[in-house]
């Protein structure tokens, strides 16, 4: 295993900049997830790490060695592709052994590794089949096995679960997590699925339009999104974002959007600079309560527009002072749609963004 360091990676395809000054570090044994919407450059970044694509500028280091000039076969990495890319003319056994044979490992070593990996992934019964005789989930396992069997320095996964149905995806996710714990491998994992990112990653790197938006642990990214993009991208349903203005008032600050006015827990030092600035206020649905919470909070009258019962909890669509907000409640409220209620919002859970950056 080895660490990975990207320094100022940029990539242009013709005149379009697909990646812009990407720097990040994955420690030895770390599970790093690249998360972002489709087309943001995740696969391109992964392919640059693999050596399948050449960066326009910047440096890739694997275990401190600069690998920019090395072809993929000399980088000692393994990659699991979205479409699996199993060799269709080879059996599962031959697929798994292919990379070892190419690296001229002795047959005894190949046999031993094969047996070990087949057992780990529970694919012993499939070894003599061709890929076309496997189900999607089985192909996925074989693709994973082909990567693991090589014991590379670095694993690269490009949306490996996106072709599986929802149930299989959930169970593979759990297995991947266990696998990582067992192998202690350095993994760079690309996905556009925030659930995969939150559950698998030690570190999440959020990409949008070729730029890093935020790097952090899952909790940090969830609790302190650094800009409105990250705030709205992570969380389901997404964070309520309200566009308005900051105002200086006697008691401190307030946020205004039409009739919607809230006091803000900002320190007063920056008063003159913030007064009158356009701002975005963010409140997560679970931070809007329909009954009084123990923490200090503001209350507002609200009209219930719609109630969606999800079973475990329910989503309440509200109109508060002319703003549409979604709240997540642990139980169905006694009121009907169209009736009024009182909502409570905790000060400490407000997110405030000015000029696209988080200030609280």
């Amino acid at each position, binding site marked *: 295993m080895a660490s990975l360091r990207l320094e100022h990676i940029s990539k242009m395809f013709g005149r379009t900049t697909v990646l812009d000054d990407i720097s990040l570090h994955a420690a030895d044994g770390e599970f790093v997830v690249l998360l972002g919407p489709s087309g943001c450059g995740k696969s391109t970044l992964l392919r640059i790490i693999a050596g399948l694509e050449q960066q326009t500028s910047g440096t890739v280091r694997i275990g401190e060695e600069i690998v920019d000039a090395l072809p993929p076969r000399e980088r000692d990495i*393994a990659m699991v592709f979205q479409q699996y890319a199993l*060799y269709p003319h080879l059996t599962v056994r031959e697929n798994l052994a292919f990379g070892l044979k190419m690296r001229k490992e002795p047959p005894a070593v190949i046999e031993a590794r094969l047996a070990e990996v087949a057992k780990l992934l529970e694919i012993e019964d499939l070894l003599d089949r061709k890929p076309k005789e496997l189900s999607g989930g089985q192909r996925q396992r074989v693709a994973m096995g*082909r990567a693991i069997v090589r014991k590379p320095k670095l694993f690269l996964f490009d949306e490996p679960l996106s072709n599986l149905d929802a149930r299989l995806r959930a169970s593979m996710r759990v297995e991947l997590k266990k696998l990582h714990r067992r192998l202690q491998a350095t993994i760079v994992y690309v996905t556009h699925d925030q659930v995969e990112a939150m559950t698998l990653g030690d570190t999440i790197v959020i990409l949008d339009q070729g730029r890093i938006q935020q790097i952090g642990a899952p909790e940090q990214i969830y609790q302190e999104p650094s800009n409105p993009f990250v705030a709205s991208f992570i969380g389901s349903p997404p964070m309520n974002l309200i566009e308005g203005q900051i105002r200086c008032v006697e008691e401190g600050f307030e946020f205004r959007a039409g009739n919607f006015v809230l006091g803000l827990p900002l320190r007063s030092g920056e008063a003159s600079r913030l007064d009158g600035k356009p701002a975005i206020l963010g409140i997560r649905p679970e931070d809007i309560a329909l009954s009084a919470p123990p923490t200090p909070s503001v209350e507002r009258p609200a009209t219930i527009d719609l109630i969606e019962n999800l079973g475990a909890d329910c989503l309440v669509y509200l109109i508060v002072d002319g703003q549409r907000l979604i709240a997540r409640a642990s139980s169905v409220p006694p009121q009907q749609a169209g009736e009024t209620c009182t909502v409570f919002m905790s000060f400490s859970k407000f997110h405030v963004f000015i000029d696209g950056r988080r200030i609280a």
Partner: protein
Amino acid sequence: MTRTRGEHVLLWGGILLAVGGSLFPFLWLVSTSLKSPIYVEAIPPTWWPDGSLVFYRNVLFEHRLFDYMINSAIVAGSTTGLALLVATPAAYALARLRLPGTAWILRGLLCVAMFPQIVIAGPVWRMLERLGGLNTHWGLVLPYVALTLPLAVWILATFFNDLPRELEEAASIDGCTTGQTLMYVMLPLAVPGLFTAAILTFIYAWNEFFFALLILTDPAKHTLPVGIALFQGEFTMPWGEIAAASVLATLPLIVVVLLFQRGIIGGLSAGAIKG
């Protein structure tokens, strides 16, 4: 959708016409080859042969049909082997290297393939004369390879193009050089394409008449088409012998095609790449 009676009649009529039309001359040839000499030019013609093998005995033992067949096998076999050997890497490069103008190179190849042969006959003859290739088998194989290459490259490039790039990328990550990727991953998957190109090249070289007549003048070196054509005497036209020889000349081709056809079908099912 169900077809009406009329459509059925039309469909089957079309199929029968196509099959019958293309088979008739060959069946007539077979029939003639199996007749006794007196029936060959009989009027009215007899449709059903009397089963005589005189002509077959004649072509095999009095003419040198067997030698011609061996010559043809050498020439067609070497042409096929050589053409595939050159066409495969060329096609792979054209299909995969991200070079500018590969599309135009491919189009150019197709244009070259359509050149009338008579136009290049003179220059080819002169070149071979310089090289000392006249009246040698390799002297015939050389222009055959040149003439069949464009089609072979075209067919193989189409096949390589249809194979997913991810497979090559997986191979390169697994430790393959470009050559190893071609050898262990791409070629096995392009088997149907290889067989298709091989069949077409082989048929061309087996049947080609014009260059064979031009380049090989020594009767001992003649290939089948030329050898058979030269059965014809100054005043006689030995129809029966020509028919028998033609039937014998076609048999190996049918065998080859049937063999390769199985390869094509096998290759197609082995190449299930999707998913």
